[in-house]
């Protein structure tokens, strides 16, 4: 457990970035990096084109929160000067443009891991935190599935 403030949560209500930053910063904090994801209405990448009207997020709640804590521990192993960390994932139905996830990493100075920690946090969340989204499009509905197959090293004791 870190001496710095930490927040791990699945949120049925809209996220308040200012409040979250206030929650995880301390007087010694001088840099905060935030990754904020949102519902994208139009996707056009690598020849793939699609429109989204709404996303519905579902989570395996106790495991998701435990895996968020594991992601934060991994961030601290890699960037030991990181101070406060918050990982908050929205659940439920979200409209285009709405905030879906906040990953917040604080440090005393900007070169002490806050950027790297936030980037690692979102990449790792998409591998091991059990959350799924259902894509509601004008032409149909379908669960979006990831690709990552967890292995023994992804266990908290791994």
């Amino acid at each position, binding site marked *: 457990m870190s001496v710095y403030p930490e927040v791990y949560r699945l949120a049925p209500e809209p996220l308040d970035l200012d409040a979250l930053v206030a929650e995880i910063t301390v007087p010694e904090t001088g840099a905060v990096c935030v990754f*904020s994801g949102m519902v994208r209405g139009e996707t056009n990448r690598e020849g793939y084109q699609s429109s989204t009207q709404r996303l519905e997020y579902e989570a395996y709640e106790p495991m998701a929160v435990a895996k968020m804590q594991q992601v934060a521990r991994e961030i601290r192993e890699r960037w030991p000067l990181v101070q406060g960390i918050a990982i908050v994932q929205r659940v439920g139905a979200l409209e285009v443009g709405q905030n879906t996830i906040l990953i917040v990493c604080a440090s005393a100075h900007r070169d002490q891991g806050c950027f790297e920690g936030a980037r690692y946090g979102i990449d790792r969340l998409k591998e091991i935190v059990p959350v799924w*989204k259902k894509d509601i499009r004008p032409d149909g509905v379908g669960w979006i599935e990831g690709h990552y197959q967890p292995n023994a090293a992804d266990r908290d004791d791994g």
Partner: protein
Amino acid sequence: MQLKVLLFATLKDRAGANHITLDLPDDSSSVAHVKDALVGRFPALAPSMPTAVCAVNQEFAEANQIVRDGDEVAFFPPVSGGSR
């Protein structure tokens, strides 16, 4: 033994249930065997099973892990949280 099985996302929709109780004649069993028993009960799950991820008592489990009476066993697609 009796297992509490949880299903999420595509698997939940295919089975038409998000949690079921699975009774197996053995005292312990592998995750692979539980998977087979589950498909036996819900054949509609079959297409999702090759890529399904398993967690036992909320930790990732491989096919040869042993489960016992009272365990919570979850099956779900590879995760897709975060943004999009």
